[in-house]
């Protein structure tokens, strides 16, 4: 991804800070979560950061006891991001699904305001059945933010049939010390019902957090797996 900079703060740092904020909220630390508190509405990099985080920007709102209500500023951040980056006709599956994830999360976790949320764009699932496991694993890890309650139920159902393949991807990613991929796959596997006990997913998620958790996005995936699906420790 091309990195935009504004002053001394690169986009990656903004994303990292936001991911840290989301992870803290999912752990129940750091006070009530407000999206506009970690990504300001008037910051030029905010729409790009929300685009990268996708549904994860709203993940804390999926918790049952989140505390603070969603305010107009939070809603504005989401609307701005949705308006800034609608997927084009040539958008990759990952971009399309990430965007769709944010739309789905808005419907699922945010109150319906005066203005309705846009309809989720069409996103194909044919690739789930036809993609060899190494490439599938890489792609699914990039869609880790969709491993949230109520989101992408059709995708989750299709991925269930590829559980063993995603487990292979998890094994390979940990072996390669590709912690971000491992965390993303581990988070999806935490959502899927048929993961083999021999994978050792709970120890695996803890291992990934311990070894790769310095990356806030790795930490976020591991804490999401624990918060929403009770996997890892």
């Amino acid at each position, binding site marked *: 991804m091309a990195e935009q900079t504004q002053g001394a703060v690169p986009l990656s740092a903004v994303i990292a800070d936001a991911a840290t904020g989301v992870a803290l909220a999912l752990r129940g630390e750091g006070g009530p979560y407000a999206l506009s508190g970690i990504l300001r509405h008037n910051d030029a990099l905010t729409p790009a950061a929300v685009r990268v985080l996708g549904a994860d920007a709203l993940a804390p709102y999926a918790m049952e006891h989140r505390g603070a209500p969603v305010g107009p500023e939070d809603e504005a951040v989401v609307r701005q991001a949705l308006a800034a980056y609608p997927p084009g006709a040539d958008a990759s599956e990952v971009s399309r699904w990430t965007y769709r994830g944010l739309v789905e999360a808005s419907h699922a976790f945010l109150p319906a305001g005066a203005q309705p949320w846009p309809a989720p764009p069409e996103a194909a699932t044919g690739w789930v059945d036809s993609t060899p496991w190494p490439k599938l694993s890489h792609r699914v890890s990039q869609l880790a933010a969709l491993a949230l309650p109520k989101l992408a139920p059709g995708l989750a159902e299709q991925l269930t049939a590829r559980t063993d393949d995603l487990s292979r991807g998890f094994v390979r990613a940990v*072996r390669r010390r590709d912690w971000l991929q491992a965390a993303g796959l581990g988070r999806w596997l935490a959502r899927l019902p048929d993961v083999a006990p021999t994978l050792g997913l709970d120890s695996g998620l803890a291992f990934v957090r311990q070894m790769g958790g310095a990356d806030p996005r790795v930490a976020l995936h591991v804490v999401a797996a624990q918060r929403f699906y009770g996997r890892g420790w």
Partner: protein
Amino acid sequence: MTVTAASPALLHAVGDRALTWLDNHREHFRLTAGDLADNVAVTERLKPIGELALNMQVLFREGVAGSRQKARAGQLLDFAWRELLDGGNVLARLQQDEPLSPVPVEVYATFHELGHRHPGLEATLEVCRRTATWATLEMVPNRRLGVLNAERKLGLPPSSDFDQAMARTWLGQLAEPWTVQLHIAYDITHTVFHLTNWGEAPERIPPAVADYLTRYLPAWLEDWADLEHWDLLGELLVVDACLPRPALDAELWERYAAAQSPEGAMPIHQQMPRGDAAQVFDQVHHPTLVAAFASAMATSRAMSAV
């Protein structure tokens, strides 16, 4: 998603080239006078000889060798028993000096299965096997399986329980597949080799272990192919060929075959090493023997699937 299986022709060609190289370099297996004066050196040089014999035996057993290949394998075996081992005397001498070492027994077991006999060695073994120490010698769990398998090959009652020995191995415990690194991977392959008597009896792999391997072996294969660790990749391809439904992945086999030198040698890691003939032999004989083994097993499975 199913993977495309390699053609029997591709699988067979890897082994044919490996055997040609092994035969052309057979003098390098020979123990020198210097080696024979030092039991540590003898033990070290016996390993490749034992592996050579195992490989030739696998070729005969699997029935995948052509007539030329079969003749070549037969000559190599005779050469190994008569010339390299002096009709078993080299093994017997080592055993005389180190009666509790499992090495002479492990090497002898293969030749015994092939019909060769050394009564003196068997007599010493009989005495040693009756001691309590024989069954309690401390060794890593998969090595214990190797000793038990050697006893099985010799037609002797097992000195300890095979299933319990299997349960003590890493693979028997079905530990986390994402922790597998190089040494664990070799522990896994050797557990499968001893369990199945080098691929002869794949059905001895317990169902839970076969499921485990079916699920996670593709991840290890892919990773060590990417790392170009041909020695381990070859051993893992043997494990694949021992599974109830081997993948015989064409893409992996093509990469494996492409790593082989034009003369038939397989490098351990990445490229062929440089150096004089003896140095190169010391480094590549093992991966080349593994290539012959993997090829025989995979060809056999591919042909029985046709």
